[in-house]
């Protein structure tokens, strides 16, 4: 089977501290995969390695740096130009991705309309609400219609209503055939994914469909906590608290 997004034996250390310790994940074309983990589990590092922003210490990733043209990357937090307007941000990223004027115009209209940002075109990005900022980030990262999307906690700090709107965007992109890897700390969000990966202290605790991981009506959250507890007791230096 051919995987659009893949990590094999991925190891990443920061000044000796192990951030990722032999991570394996694989996401097939058209799938949406959620990486679930607490803060510091290694989600951001994993996504950055896959995007090619970090050089792995060992292991292999796909698409990596060489495939970045095919990746739409939405980092954690808001990282558009706050002193540019919504329209200027879209214009800038579209131009950088090499879209011609007409195509850029058309896609910008489409995406901003769909994201509900049309009437905020001339507002400075820094003055948007958190939810609107996340939608702008997503819109800018899919302007060039990348087949692969890497989303790092895209809805953290976003109100529930905006989160629902944001998910409509994601669903639309998935329906369009995008392969999506999303890091999240929200259980309800990850439940929407076809595939789920539990990440804990730089290791994959479990991976599979929601039904695999939380069978017979058990909640994903309960399953995750159980696995975490197991992992902690299994290590001699585990957290006793």
């Amino acid at each position, binding site marked *: 089977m051919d995987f*659009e997004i*893949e990590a*094999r*034996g991925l*190891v990443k250390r*920061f000044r000796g501290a192990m951030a990722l310790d*032999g991570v394996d994940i694989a996401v097939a*074309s058209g799938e949406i995969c959620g990486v679930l983990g607490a803060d510091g589990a290694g989600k951001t590092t994993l996504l*950055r390695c896959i*995007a*090619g*922003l*970090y*050089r*792995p210490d*060992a*292991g*292999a*990733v*796909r*698409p*990596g*740096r*060489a*495939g*970045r*043209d*095919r*990746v739409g*990357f939405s*980092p954690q*937090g*808001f*990282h*558009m*130009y*706050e*002193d*540019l307007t919504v329209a*200027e941000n879209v*214009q*800038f*990223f579209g*131009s*950088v*991705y*090499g*879209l*011609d004027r007409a195509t850029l115009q058309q896609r910008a209209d489409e995406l901003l309309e769909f994201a509900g940002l049309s009437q905020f075109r001339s507002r*400075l990005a820094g003055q948007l609400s958190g939810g609107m900022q996340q939608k702008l980030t997503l819109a*800018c*990262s899919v302007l*060039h*219609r*990348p*087949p692969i999307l890497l989303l790092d906690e895209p809805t953290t700090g976003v109100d529930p209503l905006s989160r629902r709107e944001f998910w409509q965007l994601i669903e639309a992109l998935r329906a369009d*055939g995008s392969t999506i890897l999303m890091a999240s700390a929200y259980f309800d969000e990850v439940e929407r994914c076809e595939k789920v990966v539990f990440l804990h202290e730089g290791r994959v605790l479990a991976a599979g469909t929601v039904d695999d991981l939380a069978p017979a009506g058990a909640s994903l959250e309960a399953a995750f906590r159980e696995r975490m507890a197991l992992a902690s007791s299994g290590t001699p230096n585990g957290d006793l608290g």
Partner: protein
Amino acid sequence: MVTLPDAPDSKSPATSSDEATGPGRVWRATGGTGRRLRALTRKEFVQLRRDRRTVLLMIGMPLVLLLIFGYGIRLSVNGIGAELVGHDSSFVRQALTQHDRFKVTSGIAPTESAARDDLLHGRVSVAVMVGPSGLPTSVLVDGSDAFVAQNSLEYLRSLVASPGANPVRTNVLYNPTLRSADFMVPAEVGMIMLWVGTVATAIGVVREREQGTLEQLMMTPIRKIELMIGKILPYSVLTLLDAVLITTLGLWLFRVPMRGNPFELLLFAVPYLIAALSIGLLVSTVAQNQRQAMQTAAFILLPQVLLSGAMFPLAAIPWGIRWVSQLLPLTYFTPISRGVFLKGLGFADLWPQVAVLSAMAVIFTGLAAIFFKSRLD
């Protein structure tokens, strides 16, 4: 655990963008480098337009510095406090007050020890002993301010010169009245360009890192070299504007002469500018935030101002440190600027300096390219 070689990207067969999956998926670049550079440059100018603080920093501060350097900094000291000791003498008084060099107290100090006390407490800087004949016999100079002392000695030499000796005729060329402004303003053009170019470029990059937009840019097709040029280009324009501004004001406000061709000066400034901006890029590779960028830039700029000959003559710099001067771009731009302003020199005379600056521009840009990262780690 299997450890693959250090090129994970090549391990995974990278599907190129034309092999896209499904209809409507093909991403096509319609423009290359030129288009991306235009986008980057335009973005930078829009940001600058909205960032009043930076514009103030880049236009306002040079103006203040020009006024300070032009009006405030005097390389010759006048009105040095002096007194006569022992006897009064209108001859000595007249000699001292000539050209307002000294300001002589009306009374006289009765004894040398009284004069020493005056020097000690800073009431005067110079005490001239006058003999009964009304001629000076010896002089005491307060050496605690070396600058004042040196000027005093220089002035006093004429006073104590033996009356019989032939006076030597001196002719000061290029700046006959030895005006400080004529000396300082051309040097200041170089200092301002260095300051603005280095700081603005460094902050321009570091701000992107702080705000996380650098991470976004790294995910776009923008190449490292394009990102560098995208920073250098807009700030070059701004820095050159500053140079023109300072030159114009120097000519108008301080009546500094422009004996050479100002456009030639602008042309010579280009390699200097690129060197300065590349230093800014280098600063941005070590600084993690804007505060660090400012501090690092100040650390690099201060020795340039002190050791380049822009303020103090190169000849005054001891050999052990002189080699540092040789590495500083300002050391080569200062003679260019002074040469064009005051001596009317052109390329035929200044090509060695222009050549060194061009080499520096290449080396610093190359270093910046090596240290500038296209990844986060």
